[in-house]
């Protein structure tokens, strides 16, 4: 009994330390990636290539004065960071990094993850309400709407994944991808999972609830010092969770073709895949403008949720009729391409056409005028 307790304590501490190290690396990686996209150097002063910059930032945040607004609802204000922070770390108890490398390998692992990740919404809303700030309230309400609507496509996509190996156990799901990763079977699922995941963690182009140019930090506007650091930590841990889940559910986890079967190989494989997904998320941030709240909601409800049901239906048909893998992959790919083309055709294409027409008109006008002058 006591031995178990000690083992678990050590495991949890190791997990929290590892995740904090991951967050520090992510902060550095994000700043460097964005800098590279924007033709800047990024942090260069603290440590070689600014490697120690996140550590310095974290230290700065810890020694900063922690201010509570006079009108704030103090219990809510203090509790909110914890309510956001704890679920995002608890999830990691069941995330495996190799076949036998998890704190607790649960049979209902995915269910546990989905259930706990929803909890952090409460914390964000608490922060928004407790801050006694109008921007924060606006941001908190936005986040509630956004996170709840994007939870549905994630759940649907996860269900479609569960259907393939008939298990909610993450180890079984990864082992089911020995032959072929689910990303190739369900490309649509991967796309939906990534988009909804980015919306879940509130990163660009879905960073509406702390939109800098509108609500200036949203629910976190009044937080400073260590409390803000906790939110920050949770945000990056969530980003990494989405990346690792994408790696485990769709990219084959530690199953790596042409590599020896060893725990450390699998461990590295998952890490590499997760960091690649994280890089894609950072790349989004450097590229896209953010959507508006109503557009975000209609994108969630009118595009992602129907698509996630289509993904579910395709997988169900594949399993029920025992179709070939090719048919599922092709059908999924076709739906993805069709949706992408529809969006292009509805948005970019007419705009390009209008631009061409207008320029032609302006040029024609100029020609008439110059001939008149002569």
């Amino acid at each position, binding site marked *: 009994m006591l031995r178990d307790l000690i083992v678990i304590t050590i495991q949890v501490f190791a997990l929290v330390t590892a995740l904090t190290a991951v967050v520090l690396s992510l902060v550095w990686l994000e700043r460097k990636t964005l800098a590279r996209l924007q033709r800047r150097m990024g942090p260069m002063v603290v440590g070689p290539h600014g490697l120690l910059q996140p550590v310095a930032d974290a230290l700065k945040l810890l020694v900063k004065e922690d201010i509570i607004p006079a009108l704030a609802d103090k219990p809510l204000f203090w509790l909110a960071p914890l309510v956001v922070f704890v679920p995002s770390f608890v999830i990691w108890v069941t995330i495996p990094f190799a076949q036998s490398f998890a704190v607790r390998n649960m049979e209902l692992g995915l269910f546990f993850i989905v259930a706990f990740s929803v909890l952090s919404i409460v914390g964000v809303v608490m922060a928004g309400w407790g801050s006694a700030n109008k921007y924060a309230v606006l941001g908190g309400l936005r986040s509630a709407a956004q996170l709840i609507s994007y939870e549905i496509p994630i759940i649907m996509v996860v269900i479609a994944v569960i259907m393939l190996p008939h298990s909610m156990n993450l180890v079984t799901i990864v082992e089911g991808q020995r032959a072929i990763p689910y990303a190739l079977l369900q490309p649509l699922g991967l796309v939906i999972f990534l988009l909804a995941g980015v919306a879940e963690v509130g990163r660009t182009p879905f960073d509406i609830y702390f939109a800098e140019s509108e609500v200036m930090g949203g629910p976190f506007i009044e937080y400073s010092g260590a409390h803000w650091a906790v939110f920050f930590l949770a945000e990056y841990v969530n980003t990494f969770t989405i990346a690792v889940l994408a790696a485990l559910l769709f990219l084959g986890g530690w199953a790596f073709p042409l590599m020896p079967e060893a725990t450390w190989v699998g461990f590295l494989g998952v890490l590499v895949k997760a960091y690649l997904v994280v890089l894609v998320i950072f790349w989004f941030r450097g590229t896209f403008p953010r959507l508006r709240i*109503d557009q975000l909601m209609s994108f969630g409800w009118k595009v992602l949720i129907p698509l996630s049901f289509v993904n579910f239906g395709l997988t169900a048909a594949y399993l029920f009729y025992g179709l070939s893998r090719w048919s599922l992959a092709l059908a999924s790919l076709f739906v993805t391409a069709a949706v992408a083309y529809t969006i292009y055709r509805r948005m970019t294409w007419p705009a390009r056409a209008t631009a061409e027409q*207008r320029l032609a008109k302006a040029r024609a006008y*100029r020609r008439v005028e110059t001939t008149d002058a002569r």
Partner: protein
Amino acid sequence: MSLLPLGEKVRMRGISYPMAIDKQLDSLELMINVGPQHPATHGVFRMVVWIDGERIVDVEPHIGYLHRGTEKLCEGEQYSQIITLFDRLDYVANFNNELVVCMAAEKLMGTEVPERAQYIRTILCELNRIASHMLFYGTFALDAGAMTPVMYAFRERERIQSLFEATSGARLMHNYFRIGGVRQDAPDDFAQRITTLLEPVKETIAEADRLITFNEAFLARTRDVGTIDGNTAVALGLTGPSLRASGVEYDVRRTEPYLLYDRLDFIVPTGDRGDCWDRFWVRIREMEESVRMVEQCLQQMQSGPIMAPTRRIARPPKGEVYAHAENPRGDLGVYLVSSGADRPYRLKVRPPSFCNLMSMKHMMRNAYMADAIMILGSLDIVLGEVDR
């Protein structure tokens, strides 16, 4: 629920009670203060927004945080000293501002500006238009949430400002145009410098189209947002790119050519819907046209005098004159009353930013909170000019 047109509501002690909101719930709309220290107000502009959920019910602009009394100061300064004050109006397009006050005095005095000076002025004004629109491109994308374009835009702006520095000695407050010409001749490698800087500028403009203009998310944010039709735009006194985006082909360079615009071949791009995207698109196309104009000027430019033979202290004859020019933000006008002394009797500025800002309320009708930021950004105001 239908929203009433702005203004039709009972207002008590700063809180408005629109009739449209469900009275049984007794819910008031939320008043949000945006600015003067808000990342998206582009300076010290403050607007008070009343929102119902995410919809804007009413908006009230508050200006004057940057009021320096420029018009009154002008009455106490000699004409050559006024030019420095004009630098500080629209501090993003300084050359264009200097030009208008010089044009007003020259018009009153009947001064013929030498051709080379005209060319230098045209080139600098057009380059300044590119620099100003670059700033708009960057900050507008930043308002929309895209953080990368601002870096690219500022790089090009920096190149142009380096040229300004080489020409006038200052990056921002140039004080370079004089009544009757320019202060000193352009540097020897003027043409060569400009040719080398225009190449990356052209590339960045093309990149803007690839990166932002036709981006699906950007289109979703700006298409049909803050629309204003041509007639309303004219009635509200909108000028410049914001007016042309509504389909009105009014460009002072075309309708009343000043400087050397009648010798240049350029088009006036116009929109049709008058939404935020049209305003953005018109400005991007204007940058292309400015590049072409500068190239034409460089081909036509010849050496010669740069200053008309004027007296050291300008004393325009008694009279009144109105001069205006197409600034990056719109139609900047100067109404000058001279009593024959060495300083103006009265000088009135028609600042395009101020007049454009007046249409903000109309555009924000029924908009979302997030749109308010985009609309304000698309008007591209500079507070130095709004408050004077």
